[in-house]
């Protein structure tokens, strides 16, 4: 697929996901509300990283650097929230 078509397709899917996230906000999902919104956000972020930022063609070293960043983010969230959510 040409790069222009790929970008246009990514835009279309991103708009669709924006619509889904808006619709889901008004549904009665109970506690699943925020997880749903975050999952859709994650899908959008993955699209942007893979298509607009062209992560894969940038090579293994760049992918490793990016993965390391996400790993540190995970540590920060897991340790901090693990503390807050388990306090009595």
């Amino acid at each position: 697929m040409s790069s222009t078509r790929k970008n246009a397709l990514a835009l279309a899917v991103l708009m669709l996901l924006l619509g889904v996230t808006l619709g889901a906000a008004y549904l009665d999902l109970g506690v699943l509300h925020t997880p749903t919104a975050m999952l859709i956000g994650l899908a959008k972020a993955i699209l942007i990283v893979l298509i607009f930022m062209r992560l894969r063609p940038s090579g293994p070293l760049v992918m490793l650097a990016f993965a390391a960043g996400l790993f540190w983010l995970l540590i920060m969230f897991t340790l901090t929230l693990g503390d807050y959510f388990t306090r009595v």
Partner: protein
Amino acid sequence: VAEARAAAAHAHQFEDAEQQRRAVTLGMWAFLVTEILFFGGLFLAYAIYRWSFPAAFAAASHELDITLGAVNTVVLICSSLTMAMAVHAAQTGRGKSLLGFLAATILLGGAFLGIKAVEYRHKFHEHLVPGSSFRLPEEAVRGRLASDHDAAIAAGVPSMEYGTLEELQRHAQIYFSLYFAMTGMHALHMVIGLGLLGWLVTGARRGRFTPESNAPVEIVGLYWHFVDIVWVFLFPLFYLVGRAP
């Protein structure tokens, strides 16, 4: 002439243009990783306070204009597309398209900041800036206090219990502190991005970017898309809390 141009395409510490391009790209991603952790800390603070004061966050979130937020999301996603197209134009040596797409990105980025400024202005007028004059309006508070709880249930309105009005008002200020800190930091990144885009326009007008040498366009593109991703999470977390009936 071709040899001189190829030599100018990379700095002397690099073997060739390809090696330089890889180094520059890796450097930008390394910087973006620090940005991920920077914004990550803010999102973490949000998570803790949202978890601690869900009712206040739901009440405060209703004060944001969902339409303006959604329009801004569309504007920003479109600006990411024009930025991606600008990078593609630089890589394929189409100077005119490059200038056009850069200009479009600047225009969309400016539109985003303009809408954001309108929103901030409303918040100032509506006393929603944390401080001594802060107050959530009556409608936002109604049905959320413990004393209104029974009346709300009787009227068939689901109620999120809350202690006192003062508590609710205080915790709503935490929401707005985070709102201004996070969207403000995001807007600051946009302003810097617009500056970088202006710098690219100057370079593009002088024909500085060729298919062999266009790293500045590429890495400013990476930065711009990153700022877009931050907004992708800010939008649902601030605008879409507690909207369900």
